[in-house]
């Protein structure tokens, strides 16, 4: 029962901390642009403001349009519940393994795209069409990468896999290197960041994700933005868990939990810096360069799987 309590607490922490990661990202990015940054908790202010604004719906918005933000947020909440943040072997990790996690992302994306089409504006359709294209190409690469990891650990359960990698200590696995690169590319594409999409753009014609939610406002928008911050955090934590799990707590003792918390915070901050550097040195791609980009990611994940089978299992 305490384990479940821990799981619930960790999930809440996850959800609550997600905007903070966004704020930190924003701060680092501002500094990379040689500008003074807003406070780290700026995202919370945005959410609070949006929650307080009066709702405004398009005339022909259907019940689906109003339901979607809750569905998206629910899916992200579930996804957050199964990812080990500061401690492994939580009972909640058994709810869904990594494939179901991808399923949750797909669920959220499916309904966001439908919401984009619901109003019947050109931008919504455009965003939906592009998002589905990009995700369709990103999903195989993502699954291939995680398959490599789960074949190594012989499990798709995130908590168990993390623990396995933690236990096996430092092993120079080329497959992990390639899987990391592939997963990074996929994460960039899925969380709609440069070079696939530009989260800060105002030009509808260059939008992917943003174009679908142009019609949302108020609490709906708040939920959707929060959900996307959670999604970003989930990808970040996944990368951290799989490739640098050191420091994560393996029992529920206070000390271990503290260490785990500190470790994950440090790792996420570092990861955010890397991401910002990446976004600073790269330029946004044309839409039809993205398939090649993701094709490269797929190639990387295939390579990861092959090196795993050829070199690491000694087949």
């Amino acid at each position, binding site marked *: 029962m305490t384990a479940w309590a821990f799981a619930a607490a960790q999930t809440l922490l996850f959800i609550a901390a997600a905007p903070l990661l966004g704020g930190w990202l924003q701060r680092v990015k*501002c500094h990379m642009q*040689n*500008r003074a940054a*807003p406070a780290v908790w700026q995202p919370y202010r*945005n959410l609070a403001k949006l929650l307080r*604004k*009066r709702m405004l719906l398009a005339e022909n918005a259907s019940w689906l349009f109003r339901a979607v933000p809750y569905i998206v947020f629910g899916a992200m909440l579930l996804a957050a519940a199964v990812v080990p943040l500061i401690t492994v072997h939580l009972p909640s990790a058994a709810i869904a393994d990594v494939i179901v996690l991808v399923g949750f992302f797909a669920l959220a994306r499916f309904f966001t795209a439908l919401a984009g089409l619901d109003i019947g504006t050109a931008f919504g359709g455009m965003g939906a069409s592009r998002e589905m294209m990009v995700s369709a190409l990103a999903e195989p690469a993502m699954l291939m990468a995680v398959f490599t990891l789960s074949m190594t650990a012989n499990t798709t359960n995130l908590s168990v896999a993390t623990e396995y990698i933690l236990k096996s200590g430092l092993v120079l696995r080329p497959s992990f290197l390639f899987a990391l690169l592939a997963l990074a590319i996929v994460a960039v594409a899925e969380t709609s960041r440069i070079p696939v999409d530009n989260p800060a753009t105002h030009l509808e014609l260059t939008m992917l994700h943003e174009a679908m939610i142009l019609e949302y406002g108020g609490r709906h928008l708040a939920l959707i933005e929060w959900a996307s911050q959670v999604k970003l955090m989930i990808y970040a934590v996944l990368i951290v868990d799989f490739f640098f799990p050191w420091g994560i707590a393996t029992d529920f003792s206070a000390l271990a939990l503290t260490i785990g918390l500190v470790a994950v915070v440090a790792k996420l901050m570092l990861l955010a810096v890397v991401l910002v550097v990446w976004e*600073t040195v790269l330029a946004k791609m044309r839409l039809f360069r993205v398939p090649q980009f993701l094709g490269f990611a797929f190639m990387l994940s295939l390579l990861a799987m092959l090196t795993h089978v050829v070199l690491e299992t000694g087949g």
Partner: protein
Amino acid sequence: MWHVIHQIVRIGIVTEPAPRVTDADGAAIERIHQDILDILGQALTIREVDAGSCNGCELEISALSNPYYNIEGLGIKFVASPRHADMLLVTGPVSRHMEEALRRTYDATPAPKLVVAVGDCGCTGGIFGEGYATRGKVANVIPVDAVVPGCPPPPLEILRGILGAVRRRQGHPTPDRT
């Protein structure tokens, strides 16, 4: 890549501190920051509407988001859709072509919302005035909360205007007009 990063490191933070033209203004700006924090949860989002301006004001407005004036550092950002916006920043003598568009944009913005008219054209109609092609000042089309005169007004003035609108709202919040 290394070149870029090296340049970034070399330049460092360039954002200027809160403008200190006079103590009063400086104080005002400081205070206004407080107001933003109070009213709009310290996060203002702006949709810019060009109602037939000569783009002089747009140049100055876009200067707001560069690292020097860095409106982003105040928690204010420009957004792509009025659905996401709290404030409309309107420029130009509302030309007949843009009149309907301006109305619709105003209608599409959720309450509580502010309107700031920027530039002489926006405030008074400017040299165009009201004619067969223009409706003159923005207030003729939609209610305006604050005006920023000048042709074009410098970025700091625009910033003051934006913050001023927020401050004025604090006392007596006017109800949603639509």
